[in-house]
Each structure stands twice: as C-alpha cells, then as structure tokens.
C-alpha cells in the first residue's frame, strides 16, 4: 500500500482545481461549477478512503513535501536551523478526518444542486469556487504535518468562511456577519500565531510527530527541568499551549469567542453545514486532537480546556432553548456540542473527543442539510413558528432529521449518545478526583437536559402539529439531490456509534472499541501520536464509584435520564397541534437568554465603543499635536514655504525639462572631470 500515499497530495489538490475551474470557467459551465466541485470532492472522498484503507493495513505516512523556507533558528533549545515546510502526516486521526471532511464536502456539493442551483441563485461560480477553496484548505489543514502549515490553512479556512458567509453580499447583514466571523476568529488566531512563533522560537521545530517534533522537545525540556524564556519548562509549555488554544477557541466558537457563529447563519445553509460539521468549527477541536501530546504535558492547560468546554456546552445550550429560527437553534447546538468535545479532550478523553467530532460531523451536517431542505419546503421561511405539519408532507426529510435530532439529543442507540456518554464518563471519573473537572462535568451533564429540550422543541415545532402558514400547507417539493445526502447522513447518524461502543465493551467485557484501537495505532499508527502514548503523558488521577461497571451505568443513566426529561418537557410543551410559546414563563431570565447574555453587546462595545473612539482620539491627536508641530515648525521657518513657492510658479514643462537636462549635464560634467571619457 506504500504507493497509496504518493497520491495523498491529490486529496487537497482536487478541490483546489475545482476552485480555479469554477472561478474562471464556472460562468460558462452547465451547472456553474457544481459538476467540477462534485467530481473533485468525490475524488477526494475516494482517495481519502484509500488512505483510510492504507492506514488500516498498517501503513502511515509522514513526509515533508516542500520546503517553504529555512534559516537560523536562534531557538532557546534544539537545533541551530529551522525549516518551515509543507508536509503530509497521515496517521489514524488524519485519515479518519480526511474521510469525514471529504464526505461531508461531497454531500454538501450534491445538496447544493438542489439548494442553490434549483432555487435560481446568482453568483454560483463564486459559490462553488468558495466551497472548493474551503474544502482544499480544510483537507490541507487536516493532514498538515506541522503547526505552521496548520496555521496557514487554518487562516485560509477563515478566509473561505468570510467569503461564503458573505455570499449574499448585496444584503446588509451578510457582509456584517462575514466580517464578524473573520474578525472574532482573527482575534483568536492572533494568539495562535503568537503561540506558533513562541513554539518555533523555543524548540526550533514545529513538527507534530516524530523525534524532531516540538512535542518530543517539550517533553525533554520538562524532564530536563530547565528554564525557557525565563519560565520553568512546564509553565512555558502551558503558556504556549494556551496561546495556540486562542485560535481553537475562536474557530471552534468556544466562550467567549463564540459570538460570530450564530451570525454566520447569514450564509447559505449548505455553507453552515460545511462550516459546522466538517470545516471551520471542526478545525479548532481537531487541532487540539492533533497536538494532544503537547496539551497532555500540561495539566493546567487540559483543565482549562475541560472547563471552557463544559461551560460552553451548558452556556450555549441554554441559549438554544429560546430561539425561533431553526438555523439559530442549530447554531447554538453546534457551539454546545463543540464544548463537549473540548470537555472530552480536556479530561484526557482523546478517543471520546475524536469520536464525538466524527459523530457530530455526520449528525450536524444532517441537521443543517435537513434544515436546508425544510427551508426549501417552506419557500425560504426559517421561523419555526410558521412551520408545522411537515412530518407527513416530507417524510424523507422528517425521518432523517429525526435521526439527526435523536443523535444530537443523545438518545440511545443513536450515534450521539455513545460519544457524548463516553465524554461524560471520562469527565466523571477524572472529576471524582479533581473538583474543577467535577464542575466541568456537572455543567456538561446539565447541558444534556437543555440539549434534549431544544432539539425536540425544534422537531415538534417544525414537523409536528398543524401547518401554521400557507407555505407549510403547500410545501415546495425537494428533489433527489436533496434527499440523497440526507439519507446517507441519516444512516450514519444511526449507526456511526458502532465505531466505539465503550459502555457495552466495559459492561459485557467484549472487545468492540474499534475507534479506540484505531486511534491507538493498532491497525497502523505513528508511535508518539497514539492514544496510549498520550495516556502515559496524562497526569490525571481517575476514580470510580464502587466499580467501573457501576460508574458506567451511573454516567449513562444520568445523561439518558436528563436527555429524556428534556425531550419529554419539549413534548409536553410543544406537541400540541397548535403549540404556543412559553417564553414569558422564563421572565427576565428569558430576556437575558434571548439576548445571548449580552455577549454580542459587550464585544460590539469593545469594537465600536472603545476601539473606534480611541482611534478617533488618536487621529485628532495626530492631526493637532503631531502634525500641528510639523506645520508649526514649517511656518515658523518661512524660508521653506517661500522657497518652494518660487518653484511652483514656474511653468512645469520648462522646469522639468530643465531639471532633467541639468541633471544629465551635471553627470556628464562630473564624468568628464573624473576622466571617464
């Protein structure tokens, strides 16, 4: 299978070609670039599966393909020279993610035929070019073998989200949302880049894996117990790790940089599906998984990751409860679900976090595409209160959406249950020893209730009851290009959990945790970037309640109970044929939640109420004080102005000609004088 990997660059190259083709020739192509995109992502999918098979057969790939530049490292420790390069790292994690990304991208392209082309959108070449560039950037990010390359494509992912969120640029809201998305994530990326620079300057390498990796260097430095930039090694690893985490918090929309994500719903729903399930938002969490070894070296960083994750999971879930727009509900659910992944990774549950990343990619793509189908059905109405009764009129959409909803709510046996349960279990056993983690666990657990509630509130309002608008009574039909992706993802949302039935494995003592073995490199892997290698680095103590089996049952039971209660409450409140709003019961708390805890307000205030006035003050200062001094000096020395005035009154033609003639004469004269001729 060695030959397989020589085709790895093609996985990213296909969508790049599609980008160029759609951008340049899209206007004249039959589907405005869609065919190129579908062909390219389809090919990427096939090649990604090939890589997956290659890894399954025991091979891995780690190769520097192109040296960007190299030079003196001037690093604290490590090599004298540093190379910045583009390389490919295909290990079990990357291979899995490649398949997820290319699959979702492919399905989104297919779905776009029905969602964008069939709906008569203009600017489609731009749309497909954007999707192509997006897929290219994400795939390149996924198999990047070093932190700088990862950063570069991470940024390009940000660019693509800007372009696609702002796709409908003729509106006021879409460009604003696009700007916000880029700016907020850029704020996070500032820390990320500082982290990259710091790590490079410290260890003289940015490789993720191998003996030369910064992870290995950091481990060695901690063992040595030396000083790095005036800190002891572990503190410095914590600091740099947190800096990189800034980028993760921005892109994965974790508190407090989550505010861009709900606004990003201004983009086409297909774009939301891609952003939330497989590209931009996933990129953040994937990065934590990619350099998990580095985080594992610092218990402080891990605890912070876990706490941010748990908090975000709960925080976002409560906001999802009161939204009326179907896409808004999904937006907050995304923030919340990525919070779970962060929680999982933060407690050392590497497998659980990655497992949830995978399951979430499938069910969230499904839910967004399902919402897209609903929006088509509803003639572009997104308010759930105007829907209702779509269950019987659009069964494919309904049942697939329901599968996604059950997975999201974490109802057994749908995929989301298994991964979320594993995260909560991992958090619980660590939490039994560490109070801070216990708090994170408690928040994550409580969020399950809200998740169940808002998910089924959405399902009931959208699909059940009586139609509450003309559009709902007479839905626009949807074609196969819409149904097919839904069915594929629907199946995955149901069965993907099989990949890692950890509770069953623990209770029945059978060996069916395939994903864990996969990530542990038991089929094929690279030594230092496996689950067990990470586990050795982790400093967490774990506890159990009486026995492992009992703990498993308690954890699963609690989360199921809460999920069912949430769903049950939604059923009780919203399953009437003519459901009514219950928001007023929340009182003032409802207002706070509806206003998203004023998170937007304070961030807009920081930008427009602090930075902008400060800029204006600087401008006034510049014009009055600094420039005033300059002008003052010049008018005081009248010499300057009167002298220049004389130049100006001359006729420019003559003057300029004279000037040049004079200059040449001077040169010639000096030349003759100097004896050149």
């Amino acid at each position: 299978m060695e030959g397989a990997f020589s085709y790895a660059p093609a996985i990213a190259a296909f969508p790049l070609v599609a980008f160029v083709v759609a951008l340049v020739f899209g206007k004249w192509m039959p589907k405005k670039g869609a065919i190129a995109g579908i062909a390219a992502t389809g090919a990427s999918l096939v090649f990604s599966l090939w890589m997956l098979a290659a890894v399954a057969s025991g091979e891995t790939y780690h190769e520097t393909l192109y040296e960007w530049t190299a030079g003196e490292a001037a690093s604290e420790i490590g090599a004298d020279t540093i190379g910045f390069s583009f390389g490919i790292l295909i290990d079990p994690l990357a291979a899995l993610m490649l398949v997820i990304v290319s699959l979702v991208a492919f399905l989104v392209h297919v779905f776009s035929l029905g969602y964008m082309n069939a709906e008569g959108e203009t600017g489609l070449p731009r749309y497909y070019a954007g999707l192509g560039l997006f897929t290219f950037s994400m795939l390149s990010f996924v198999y990047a073998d070093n932190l700088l390359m990862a950063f570069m494509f991470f940024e390009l992912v940000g660019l693509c989200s800007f372009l696609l969120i702002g796709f409908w640029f003729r509106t006021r809201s879409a460009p604003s949302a696009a700007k916000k998305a880029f700016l907020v994530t850029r704020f996070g990326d500032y820390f990320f880049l500082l982290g990259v620079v710091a790590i490079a300057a410290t260890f003289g390498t940015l490789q993720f894996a191998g003996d030369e990796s910064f992870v290995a260097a950091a481990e060695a430095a901690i063992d040595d117990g030396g000083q790095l930039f005036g800190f002891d090694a572990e503190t410095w690893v914590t600091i740099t790790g947190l800096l990189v985490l800034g980028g993760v918090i921005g892109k994965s929309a974790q508190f407090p940089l989550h505010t861009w994500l709900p606004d990003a719903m201004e983009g086409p729903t297909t774009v939301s599906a891609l952003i939330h399930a497989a590209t931009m938002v996933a990129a953040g969490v994937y990065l934590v998984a990619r350099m998990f070894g580095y985080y594992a070296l610092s218990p402080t960083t891990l605890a912070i990751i876990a706490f941010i994750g748990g908090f975000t999971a709960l925080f976002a879930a409560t906001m999802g409860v009161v939204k009326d727009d179907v896409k808004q509900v999904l937006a907050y659910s995304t923030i919340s679900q990525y919070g779970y992944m962060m929680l999982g990774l933060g407690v050392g549950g590497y497998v659980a976090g990655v497992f949830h990343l995978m399951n979430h990619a499938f069910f969230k793509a499904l839910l967004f595409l399902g919402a897209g189908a609903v929006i088509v059905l509803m003639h572009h109405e997104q308010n759930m209160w105007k829907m209702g009764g779509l269950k019987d009129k659009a069964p494919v959409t309904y049942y697939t959406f329901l599968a996604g909803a059950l997975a999201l709510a974490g109802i057994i046996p749908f995929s989301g249950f298994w991964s979320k349960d594993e995260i909560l279990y991992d958090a619980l056993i660590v939490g039994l020893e560490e109070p801070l983690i216990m708090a994170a666990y408690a928040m994550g657990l409580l969020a399950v209730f809200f998740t169940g509630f808002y998910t089924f509130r959405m399902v009931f309002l959208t699909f059940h009851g009586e139609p509450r608008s003309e559009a709902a009574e007479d839905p626009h039909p949807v074609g196969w290009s819409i149904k097919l992706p839904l069915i594929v993802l629907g199946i995955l949302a149901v069965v993907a959990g099989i990949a890692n039935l950890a509770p069953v494995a623990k209770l029945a003592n059978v060996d069916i945790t395939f994903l864990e073995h996969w990530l542990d490199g038991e089929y094929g892997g690279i030594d230092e970037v496996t689950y067990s290698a990470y586990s050795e680095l982790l400093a967490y103590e774990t506890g159990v309640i009486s026995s492992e089996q009992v703990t498993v049952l308690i954890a699963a039971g609690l989360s199921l109970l809460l999920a069912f209660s949430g769903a049950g409450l939604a059923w009780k409140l919203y399953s009437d044929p003519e459901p009514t709003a219950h928001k007023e019961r929340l009182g003032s708390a409802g207002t706070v939640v509806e206003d998203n805890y004023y998170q937007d307000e304070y961030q807009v205030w920081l930008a427009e109420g602090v930075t902008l006035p400060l800029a204006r003050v600087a401008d006034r200062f510049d014009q009055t004080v600094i420039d005033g001094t300059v002008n003052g000096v010049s008018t005081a020395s009248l010499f300057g102005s009167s002298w220049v005035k004389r130049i100006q009154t001359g006729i420019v033609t003559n003057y300029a000609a004279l000037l040049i003639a004079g200059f040449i004469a001077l040169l010639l004269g000096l030349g003759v004088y100097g004896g050149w001729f």
Partner: protein
Amino acid sequence: MMIEALIAVALIGALVTFVAPNRVAGKLAFAISLVPAAISLWLFATFDGSGNALLEGTLAFESQYEWIQLGEYSISWFVGLDGISLPLVVLTTVLTSLAIMSSWTPIDERESQFYGLVLFIEANLIGVFVALDFFLWFIFWEAVLIPMYLLIGVWGGPRRKYAAIKFFVYTNVASLLMFGAFIALVFGLGDAVTSFALPEVADAMVNGEGIQQTLFGLEPTTLASLVFVAMFIGFAVKVPVVPFHTWLPDAHVEAPTPASVLLAGVLLKMGTYALLRFNFTMFPEQVETYAIPIAAIAVISVIYGAMLALAQTDLKRIVAYSSVSSMGYVILGLIAYTQFGVGGATFQMVSHGLISGLMFMAVGVIYNATHTRLVTDMSGMADRMPVAVGILIAGAFGYMGLPLMSGFAAEYFIFFGAFGADFDYAPIFTGLAMFGIVLVAGYLLFALQRAVFGPYSLETDYEVSRAPLHDLAPMFVLLGLIIALGVAPDLIFDMITDAVDPILEGGDS
C-alpha cells in the same frame, strides 16, 4: 555594464517621453519601461553575487570608476548588487511598468511630462539601490524627491500644493540631517577611510577600529551614538516612522494613483533600505544599545498607525496609514537583528511594495469610476465592478497577512525573528506588535463592508462601468507576484539571507 544600461534606458526614456506627443506618451513610456524591467529580470536570473555588498561580499554586476578627488577623499561611480538590493531593483522596475499602465485611464493632461517624470523617478530609484558610493547614492536619493514633488504638485488632488511642499521640505530636511551625520561619520573615522565608498566606511566601522577621532569636542563614542541617532531620524522620516509620519497620508491622498503606487511601493523602502545599509550594517554596537527604544518605536508605529487607519473613511488614507503600520514591522525585524528578523524586514520591503501597490491601484480603479474614495459615499461596489473589487478584496487579505500571500511570509519571518531576538523583553515587544494583525483586519474589513458590500448605491453623479482591461492587468500581475512570493518565499529570501548574514556576524565579532 548592465546596471548602467538599466539606469541609462530609464533616463533616456524619460527624455524621449518628454518630447513625445501627449497622445502616445503613455504607451511609449510603458514600452520603454519594459526594457529596464526585462534587464532587471535578467540580472535576477543571472545573479551570481554572494554575501553583503558592504561587508566584503562578492558583488554582482559591479562597476567602479574613479570620478573626482575631493581633498583626501575620492568619489567614484561605484555600483553593484547583492541579495538585498537586487530584489528591490526588480521591484522598482516591475512596479514602474505597472504603474505606468495604471496611469493610462486617470492621467489625461500633460501626459508626456507625467510619464517622463515617472521614468525619471525610476532611474533614480534604481540608482539609490545600486549605488555603493555615498555621494553617488546621495545624488540619486535627492533626485528622487524632485519628480515626486512634481507628480504630486501638478497632477495631484485639491490640496496638492500643501502636500507636495510638505513632502518635499520634510524629507529634504531629514536628508540634510542624515547627510551631516554621514559626513561627521567619515571625518570621525579619520585616516581609516580615503573614499566615500560605502563598503570602505562599513569595513572601517565593523571590522576596523570604528570612530576614533574627536570631532567638535565630542568623544568618539558619543559621536558614534549621535551619528547613529541622527541618521536614524533622517531615515525614519522617509520610512516613515511615528512620529515623523504626517507627511505621508497627505502626500498619498493628494498624489495621483501611479505616484501613490511608487511612493508606497518603492519610495518608502528607500528609508528602510538606507536604515539597513547604514544604521544596521555600520553600527552593530549602537543597534544593541538602542534596541529597546527602537523596538518601542516599531511597536508604536504598528499599533498607532493601525489605530489611525481605523479612524479614516477615505480609502486612500486607510491604505496610507496602514503603510505606517507595515513599516513598523520592518523596523521590528531590523532591530531583532536575527537572520529571520532582518531578512524578514527586507522581504517585507518587497512584499509591502507589491501589496500596497496593488491596493493603491485597486482604490484608484474604483476612484476612476466613482470619483470618490470615501467609504461613506459608496456601497455595494462589488455589484458593479466585480473584478476590480475582487482584486481589492484579494489585496486587502494580502495586507492582512493571509497565508500563501507574500505579506504573511514577511510578517511571519519578522515575528519569528523578533521573538527570539537578544534584547530584553523581545517576546513582549513582538507580541504587542503582532496585535497589528487584528487591527489591520478590523479597519480593512470595516472599509470593505461599507464600500464594496451591501446594496449598491453611490453618492456621486458618475455612471459606474466595469474597469478596462489595462486597468486590471497590472493588478493581476501584482497579485500573481504576491501569491508567488507567498508560496515560494525562497525566490528571494535565500538571496536576502545570504546578504543579511554578514551583517549579523559583524555584530557578533
């Protein structure tokens, strides 16, 4: 003789264009400008120099002729190229050709004089980068000012006279300071030098004894510090560095587009180039001594320049102030005094030349159609000028340091080089300066959101039509170069670092 040919073609071209009829001047000047561009690319392709031109490096295309004897000192025609100057020469010639093409639409009076002056500037700019004798260099340095003064003062906007005078007087006073400082340096070196050849002066400073003479009652060490500071200020005006920057926005706003392109693209680099050649090559000790204040100036230039850009509503003013910010990065890279720092600073000179040129062209193309540059006057321009706006957006992201474009490479090199620099608190200074990457995204995206996105509306009476191909073509070329350098920085970074290394080794010894 290739360097002489380069300058001669531009000079003779300038004369020919001067006397050519107005109606053909633009095309003629463009055709002529292709010759220096071609020659410089040929120089680039056949470059065989190594090391630093001032520090015993092997010069490429060197030529030296005795010129005049001035008392004990000889002055010569001495030109040559190393890895630092060659990329800047190529930048100059390529940008000149493109700027000429981008003038075809906006310049509609006194064309022959306009294009003649542009070619005249080109000749002198090349001269600045190739000259290795101080007097020769200073002639070119000063000669750049006059045509630029005229370009702004004759073809500029409503306040062109004020802006042109300010530009001229301000930078000229700075030159005077720098000139005096350099002469003091040469006298201070005493018998160690017998000419104004820059390599000789640099050698005396770095490898020799340095300043030994007492001048005007100043001790040699004090004199060295004074010379360093005076030269720094002299060049800082040109760069410009805060607080000497106020001539720049006025000059840019009033200048016609092609003049802005050359002003931001190349003229500002004269300042940073001179800083590198003089201050940072000849004074390794003072660089170390003044590291912290200079780093502070760099950070202030980056952040303060960006804050000023944030407060503007004129697209050209935004780009002008952002140049102040970008030049702050160059200063940061220089003061880092590491290979990536100084190399990155040089890379940034080229990169910023391309990107700011692109931005000014794009703003100019929009201005040609709308006759306004105020973001408050227009909305949704993307609807009417999709290609031009597309390029503007690409340029804006280039400015923001989007990876795979040259700006990112430059900034990353500088940040990396500065983070590990030897002076105290280098990581803190780097971290502060890096916040510029957030601010730059802020002001550019705000401007884009208002001017090019949203529903179409325009507050002027002009009918907007798509830009002609000859307006777009130069921008595509620049975009191509920006991406090429972003993907393959080693196209020039290799030769830059090769020329930078001796400077840093000189610093160690």
